[in-house]
């Protein structure tokens, strides 16, 4: 299998200006604070694979994804998509890339223009990417797309507010696959849906991937969703990937203390299975004031001297299973 996407040293720092009165004493007029949303992220995705990116809110998953499709310009790093570094591509050329790479948004309400009907929403990528021009052809393809995601012709003239949440999300997926992209970024596609509706979307995503041979980067905070759709997973904490590997491997044998804690906190819909919880104390620190060394040091139950001085690097410990932890990478 060939690699379709390779992310190398991706960084995104947001600058927050803090104005104060220090300039009265001859200081700078403002102090620049760096919010390190994504800090040196590396991973790759092979063609036909589904990689899951998990982590808690504010860990930088969505920022990473939006950097990849260049909705956000990265601060540093390389994003090699089909052999071409798109991290510093000028804005004009991005249209060419986006024909092959699409994004499904988390919020089906906010991501569909409330004043455009389904037909126009789906026709946009077809026309803009120059796939179809003829009015009848576009309409035919729109119907075809709607059927692919389990909707039908009658939804074509509806406005988003006339559709249920699940239907809206399916329109979002239909729009993303309209131009036949090879690579799809799914940003929490089921987070805002009811379980029974979410199940349908998940099944359709699995189905689509097989049928159209697509590659997925799927973001989720719900680990069970990742387990259902993905074959590889990367766990993020405070802007960094702390563990990555095959889904089965990581879910059955997590190495990083954070992964362990995260997995143990997921409630299992089965009253007989009781998992022993590994509790992380305290709260996630702010990504503005990060400690030196490991970013989990103030919450980790296994913390030792090396953790406070050096930042652990992502090291492969088993076949394809890498972890960024002083404790595990040494042993």
């Amino acid at each position, binding site marked *: 299998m060939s690699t379709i996407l390779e992310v190398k040293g991706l960084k995104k720092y947001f600058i927050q200006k803090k104005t104060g009165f220090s300039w009265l004493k001859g200081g700078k007029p403002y102090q620049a604070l760096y919010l390190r949303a994504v800090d040196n992220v590396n991973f790759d995705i092979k063609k036909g694979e589904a990689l899951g990116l998990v982590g*808690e*809110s504010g860990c930088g998953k969505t920022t990473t994804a939006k950097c990849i499709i260049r909705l956000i310009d990265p601060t540093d790093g390389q994003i090699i998509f089909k052999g071409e570094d798109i991290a510093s591509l000028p804005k004009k050329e991005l249209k060419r890339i986006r024909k092959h790479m699409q994004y499904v948004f988390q919020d089906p309400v906010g991501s569909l223009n409330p004043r455009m009907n389904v037909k126009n929403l789906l026709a946009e990528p077809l026309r803009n990417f120059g796939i179809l021009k003829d009015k009848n052809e576009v309409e035919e393809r729109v119907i075809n797309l709607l059927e692919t995601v389990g909707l039908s012709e009658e939804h074509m003239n509806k406005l988003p507010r006339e559709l*249920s*949440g699940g239907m809206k999300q399916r329109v979002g997926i239909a729009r993303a696959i309209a131009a036949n992209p090879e690579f799809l970024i799914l940003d929490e596609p089921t987070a805002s849906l*009811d*379980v*029974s*509706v*979410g*199940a*349908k979307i*998940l*099944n359709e995503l699995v189905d689509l991937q097989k049928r159209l041979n697509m590659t997925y980067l799927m973001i989720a*905070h*719900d*680990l*069970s*969703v990742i*387990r*259902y759709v993905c074959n590889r997973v990367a766990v993020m904490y405070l802007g960094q990937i702390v563990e990555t590997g095959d889904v*089965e491997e990581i*879910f059955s044998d997590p190495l990083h203390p954070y992964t362990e*804690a*995260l*997995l*143990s*906190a*997921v*409630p*299992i*819909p*089965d*009253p*007989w*299975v*009781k*998992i022993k*919880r590994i*509790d*992380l104390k305290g*709260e996630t620190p702010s990504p503005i004031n990060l400690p030196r060394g490991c970013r989990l040091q103030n919450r980790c139950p296994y913390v030792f001297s090396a953790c406070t001085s050096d930042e652990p690097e992502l090291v492969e410990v088993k076949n394809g299973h890498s972890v960024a932890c002083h404790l595990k990478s040494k042993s």
Partner: protein
Amino acid sequence: MSENLLLNVTKLSTNFYLYEGVMRVLDEISFQIRPREVFGLVGESGSGKTVASLSILRLILPPGRIISGEIFFEGTDLLKLPQKEFSKIRGKKISMIFQQSRTALNPFMKIGEQIARIYRTHEGLSKSEAMEKAIESLKRFRIPEAEKRVESYPHEFSLGMAQRVMIAMMMACNPKLLIADEPTTGLDVTTQAQILDLMKEARDKIGTSILLITHDLGVAAQTCDRLAVMHAGHIVEIADVEVLYGRPLHPYAKALLNSIPRVDKKVRISDIPGFVPSLLNPPKGCRFINRCPKVILGVCEKAKPEMIEIDRGHFVMCHLYEGK
């Protein structure tokens, strides 16, 4: 059995009167909560879970109205109580925590004061006594540096911490019943686990019964003792949590349990076809009829099924089981 009940809701119906018509959000629901138990009310959005909880506390605002039913709490019918008497029960014997605790706390008031005035209202304590109790209750729910934090405003807390403050506030008077409406939705899993632990701890130490409203079947499985499944304004099945997950009877409950992916093992999931019916014009008979794989033609569309007890404590509302 009835002497052993804390809350007995019978045939509670709540309607919303809208332009489009009358929305029958709760249609004669009945359930019981025993002392010291965590009772779960699960269902998808639009099933009427939140309206059920707000109805118990009589917090339904127009255009909604409770139209019939009885809610017995420790022997008195809450729906017949005069407003003034009822205020004395709210917050003291029954209280409620909300999904978005940061918006459920008054943004202009220090949290210490917000908790303290509950003590002043219900226990008639003086200002300083109430403040001391407020600090104590924050400590009880593990808010670090409680003495300092009473001076903080709600926006200075993280979501998880704000939820703890809310719990501390609503548990201030050690109520007999705590209604928790999606208390962990929107929180991260690790925070969610901590909050759920706190609530269970409150039940164990203080003996508070909890009515937990959730859409998350994982949370329900790990937290509740008994469970009621709601669909389109009906409670379709009530059972002990092990029984319900082990042997669900109602086709909706079965389908719902089949639709959740699991983190501990790979399972095949399937969805429930169709949609929750509109409550404006619900089907006359069973409200699951359009989605049910086991419809008995000639029966299901005609009459609303009765709630029947299949086993001890296992109730189901489905024509399939009638006469068994």
